[in-house]
């Protein structure tokens, strides 16, 4: 049997043996064990190494605040580093390994850092590693050389790179009362609120509800408190209006009483069920909250307090009572308060020998003396521990007489033989969530602890959380808090009677024993009492400076047990009371949260895919897709063996020679309807729309309020009060919001509805010399000749029995038409057009060919309307109506927006017949070695099949005046330099004869 397992006791299931490994060694434990309890039961004392000095460390706590016993849990290739062994429930096949050690936990070469202790004091990095001021190691070189080794030595566990195969999920929850913590206070609160008919959620971060009831050994109404708690949980389970969430850490208290919680759904299982998430992230909107989060026991600061087998007193009590594990055979306790006496008695009852209770207080109550006697422990009152002995386990300790007021140690040191030392430095209420909720904690001199502030959001506190450390108080306050959170005032009722060990909740104000040797305040980060005093000497005296200079409280445990001792030592150095040093404001998360859980359902699915109605057709017909925002659009329909350039050149050329068709369903489409629709359009577009005839379309330009170009597109007048606005794909939602803002906030008097109908319509643009003939071959119910369907005209008809709307407009510069049909008919119409086009050599084309043809035409897109250009810069000033004000009209003529040296749209022709690159710059004089003197840049480029040249659009300073001049493309990033000619952006068919027909 395991060397430290008791014969009976605990809530482990001794009939179910669990097999696991730690650092490759197989062990067994029982169902219900944590990794820490199971390893302790197996006699393991060495759990980890500290961050800086790599000192050997055991397990300090039994819970979430554990700073020392951090492990990596492996599931195949998938690694989970930095998990407290106290929070890992063992399961068959669990593989855990220690971390931050080389080559092994027992023999760690970096333990040599301990020898440099005095040099590696707080802040030492800031004072050295700067290197020489001259020579090859000047600047940052020497530091970066040193840093390379520092980085490798630092760091705790190793993260994996294999993608986590498990899933994470979010759950949005709403409740009347959220109860955080399920100790006696939380259970009472949940029951009181549930009895009022409230929707209640009860969260408990441990696997079992009950909190201290699981291990305190007290009785309530004559039954063991653990049984009382189990019964209370059973009653709650019977309520429909109560949700019980075990293994659920409430880690964030956000605005509007929104709380974030992490439920560890399957970490304790060998494998999840089908579809079961590993972690569930609860976003809980609670009308009110009961905080019953308990408190943390604090360590005492004395030399050697970090040695393995030095543990918090209540942790040992938990291991004994909850897990049937004794952390030692010969146990000594060191305390400044009464709670350790109960722990002593519990350990005695569980079978350990209590060799001594060392209490810094000279005067002890008769109750405490009686408890010590019951535990058969020697009392050393007015004493303190001044050192500990041993290596990877404790072998003994030394004590001296101690004067609590002066801190003086006197008399000879006496050795005590013990294999476990328990310490209790008083208790700190777990006020993190209350602090996150927005207020500052208040110091209570009697409790020597920070108590929660007055609520700034809707919460009430109960039990140890508000400094009421007894179970009787917790029960009374819990019930009251539950009622108050429910907005009820319950009738007075008889509360359960608690039989508990006596004890004064107030500790002696002793935090540190000053003796020779390293006394640790922050165990994981190896911050010693001397480091705190060094920070004081160097002026880092405010609590935040203390934290930042020494790294106190910055480790994975976030200083849950070390913050108050650290502050106390600083306060003493300053000669000021603790609250004047300051109080740390806690921020989320309360304890570390898996990033997977926060990404939740978006892990592996960051953004939805937006698909056009013809998407599947494109895929089936060889399109290479291109991601455009959330949309997917065909880039090319490549033939076997074609390069991208060959494909788009072929597609563009075929379009200009015969006809091409492209999916334009992604264009933003907004229905603008109502009596004032035309008025609205006149105000938002720079040009006039009220004059547009029904059945006609017009190209429009919008500016932002600041006078810069915003978006462009055609708008179709389908009826007197009914317009269909199109926007660019990228700006569709921005334009929609823009219109809604003006209608709702600025011009509420306008009777206009705007509705996104992007998804209602499938759009196919068909262009080229044969386009009209193709339409004529398949459109029924309307003619498509020049009279019936002139440039910018709209007709309604049918294609393959489906109603369509056709507008004759052109982006490619060819005779072209946009054919719109209901999205559900999109593929049907598309296929009919393809079929009709077969005799005419119709090709499908993608964005690359579309881009090529628009460059040839000199049309602008988002690359030119980039938020920094004006209508004039883009030669669209002909669209700026002088007859009416419009959005941006008052601001567009400010000095900076009309300066002659602004970047203006031009065309470029490559003179060396080599391809140009997007993002290349333009210079007047070429200097390849030392590029300088940029006068602009290329926004879009292509090989133009129509011109037989490499061309580009560019924004060039004072560009219009440079037409016909030569310059150079300067692209040092891609080492592409060469001559170009600056020309008009209208390369192809500048008078538009092709599209006008």
């Amino acid at each position, binding site marked *: 049997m395991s060397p430290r397992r008791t014969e009976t006791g605990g809530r482990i299931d001794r009939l179910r043996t669990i097999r696991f490994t730690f650092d490759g060694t197989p062990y067994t434990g029982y169902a219900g064990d944590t990794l820490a309890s199971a390893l302790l039961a197996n006699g393991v004392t060495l759990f980890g190494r500290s961050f800086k000095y790599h000192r050997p460390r055991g397990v300090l706590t039994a819970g979430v605040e554990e700073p020392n016993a951090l492990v990596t849990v492996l599931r195949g290739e998938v690694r989970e580093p930095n998990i407290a062994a106290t929070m890992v429930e063992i399961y068959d096949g669990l593989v855990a390994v220690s971390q931050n050690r080389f080559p092994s936990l027992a023999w760690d070469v970096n333990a040599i850092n301990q020898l440099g202790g005095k040099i590696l004091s707080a802040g030492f990095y800031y004072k050295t590693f700067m290197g020489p001021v001259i020579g090859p190691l000047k600047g940052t070189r020497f530091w970066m050389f040193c840093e390379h080794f520092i980085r490798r030595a630092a760091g705790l566990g190793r993260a994996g790179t294999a993608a986590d195969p498990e899933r994470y999920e979010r759950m949005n929850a709403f409740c009347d009362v959220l109860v955080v913590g399920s100790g006696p206070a939380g259970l009472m609160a949940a029951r009181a609120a549930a009895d009022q008919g409230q929707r209640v959620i009860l969260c408990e971060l441990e696997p079992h509800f009950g909190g201290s009831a699981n291990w305190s050994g007290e009785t309530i109404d004559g039954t063991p408190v653990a049984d009382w708690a189990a019964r209370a949980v059973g009653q709650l389970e019977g309520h429909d209006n109560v949700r019980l969430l075990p293994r659920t850490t409430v880690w964030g208290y956000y605005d509007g009483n929104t709380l974030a919680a992490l439920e560890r759904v399957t970490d304790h299982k060998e494998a999840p069920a089908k579809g079961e998430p590993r972690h569930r992230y609860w976003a809980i909107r609670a009308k009110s909250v009961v905080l019953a989060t308990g408190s943390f026991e604090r360590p005492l600061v004395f030399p050697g307090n970090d040695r393995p087998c030095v543990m918090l007193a209540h942790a040992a009590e938990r291991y004994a009572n909850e897990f049937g594990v004794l952390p030692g055979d010969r146990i000594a306790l060191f305390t400044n308060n009464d709670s350790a006496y109960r722990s002593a008695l519990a350990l005695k009852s569980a079978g350990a020998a209590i060799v001594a209770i060392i209490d810094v207080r000279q005067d002890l109550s008769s109750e405490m003396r009686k408890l010590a006697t019951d535990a058969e422990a020697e009392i050393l009152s007015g004493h303190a521990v001044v050192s500990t002995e041993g290596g990877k386990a404790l072998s003994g300790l030394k004590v001296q007489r101690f004067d609590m007021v002066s801190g003086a140690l006197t008399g000879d040191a006496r050795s005590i033989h013990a294999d476990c030392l328990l310490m209790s430095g008083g208790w700190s209420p777990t006020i993190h969530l209350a602090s996150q909720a927005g207020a500052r904690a208040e110091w209570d001199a009697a409790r020597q602890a920070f108590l929660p502030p007055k609520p700034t959001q809707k919460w009430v506190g109960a039990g140890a959380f508000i400094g009421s450390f007894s179970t009787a108080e917790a029960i009374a306050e819990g019930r009251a808090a539950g009622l108050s959170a429910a907005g009820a005032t319950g009738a007075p009722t008889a509360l359960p009677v608690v039989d508990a060990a006596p004890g004064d909740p107030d500790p002696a104000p002793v935090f540190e024993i000053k003796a020779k040797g390293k006394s640790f305040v922050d165990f994981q980060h190896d911050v010693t009492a001397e480091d705190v005093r060094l920070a004081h000497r160097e002026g880092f005296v405010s609590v935040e400076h203390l934290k930042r200079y020494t790294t106190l409280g910055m480790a994975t445990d976030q200083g849950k047990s070390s913050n108050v001792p650290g502050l106390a030592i600083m306060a003493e150095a300053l000669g000021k009371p603790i609250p004047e040093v300051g109080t740390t404001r806690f921020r989320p998360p309360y304890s570390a949260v898996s990033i997977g859980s926060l990404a939740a359902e978006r892990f592996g699915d960051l953004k939805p895919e937006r698909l056009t109605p013809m998407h599947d057709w494109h895929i089936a017909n060889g399109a290479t897709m291109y991601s455009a925002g959330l949309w997917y659009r065909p880039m090319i329909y490549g033939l076997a063996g074609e390069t991208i350039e060959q494909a788009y050149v072929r597609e563009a050329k075929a379009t200009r020679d015969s006809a091409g068709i492209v999916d334009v369903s992604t264009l933003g489409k907004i229905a603008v309807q109502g009596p004032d629709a035309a*008025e609205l359009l006149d105000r938002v577009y720079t040009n006039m729309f009220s004059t547009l005839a029904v059945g006609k379309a017009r190209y429009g330009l919008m500016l932002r309020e600041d006078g810069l170009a915003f978006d462009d597109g055609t708008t179709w007048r389908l009826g007197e009060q009914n317009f269909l606005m199109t926007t660019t794909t990228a700006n569709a939602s921005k334009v929609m919001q823009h219109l*809604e803002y003006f209608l*709702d906030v*600025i011009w509420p008097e306008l009777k206009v509805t705007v509705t996104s109908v992007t998804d209602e319509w499938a759009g196919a643009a068909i262009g080229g010399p044969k386009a009209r003939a193709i339409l004529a071959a398949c459109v029924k119910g309307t003619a498509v000749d020049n009279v019936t369907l002139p440039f910018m005209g709209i007709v309604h008809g049918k294609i393959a029995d489906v109603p369509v709307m056709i507008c004759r407009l052109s982006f490619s510069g060819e005779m072209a038409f946009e054919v719109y049909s209901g999205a559900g008919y999109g593929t049907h119409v598309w296929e009919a057009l393809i079929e009709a086009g077969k005799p005419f050599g119709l090709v499908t084309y993608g964005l690359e060919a579309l881009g090529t043809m628009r460059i040839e035409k000199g049309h602008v897109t988002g690359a030119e309307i980039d938020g920094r250009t004006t209508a004039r810069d883009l030669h669209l000033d002909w669209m700026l109506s002088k007859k009416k004000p419009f959005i941006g009209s*008052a601001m567009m003529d400010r000095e900076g927006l009309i300066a002659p040296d602004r970047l203006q749209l031009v065309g470029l022709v490559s003179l060396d017949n080599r391809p140009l690159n997007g993002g290349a710059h333009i210079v007047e004089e070429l200097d390849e070695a030392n590029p300088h003197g940029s006068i602009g840049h290329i926004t879009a480029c292509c090989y133009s099949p129509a011109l037989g040249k490499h061309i580009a659009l560019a924004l060039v300073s004072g560009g219009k005046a440079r037409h016909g001049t030569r310059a150079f493309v300067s692209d040092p990033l891609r080492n592409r330099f060469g001559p170009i000619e600056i020309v008009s952006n209208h390369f192809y068919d500048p008078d538009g004869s092709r599209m006008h027909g």
Partner: protein
Amino acid sequence: MLITCPYCGPRDVIEFTYQGDGNRQRPQPSSQDLDAWNAYVYDRLNPAGDHNEIWQHSGGCRAHLRVVRNTLTHEISSSGFARGDHKAAARHKSEAKS
């Protein structure tokens, strides 16, 4: 943070888009007072305390709300439809007709 939409009820802030300072006054569309336009486009009240601001319930009913929210505590003391601001509506109306 929860914002109470007068139509949809209290909703998570994730459903809303912030549109900033609700005190800004847009000049009359035909105004040539560049200072007034500059003030409207660029200058913002930025108080530490209660702030009158415009939010759009873009992930819900898409209405714009006028919300008074404390920038130190994020507490919201009032919210209502932005278009309920009838004075502003009347002013623009009269101009639209002139």
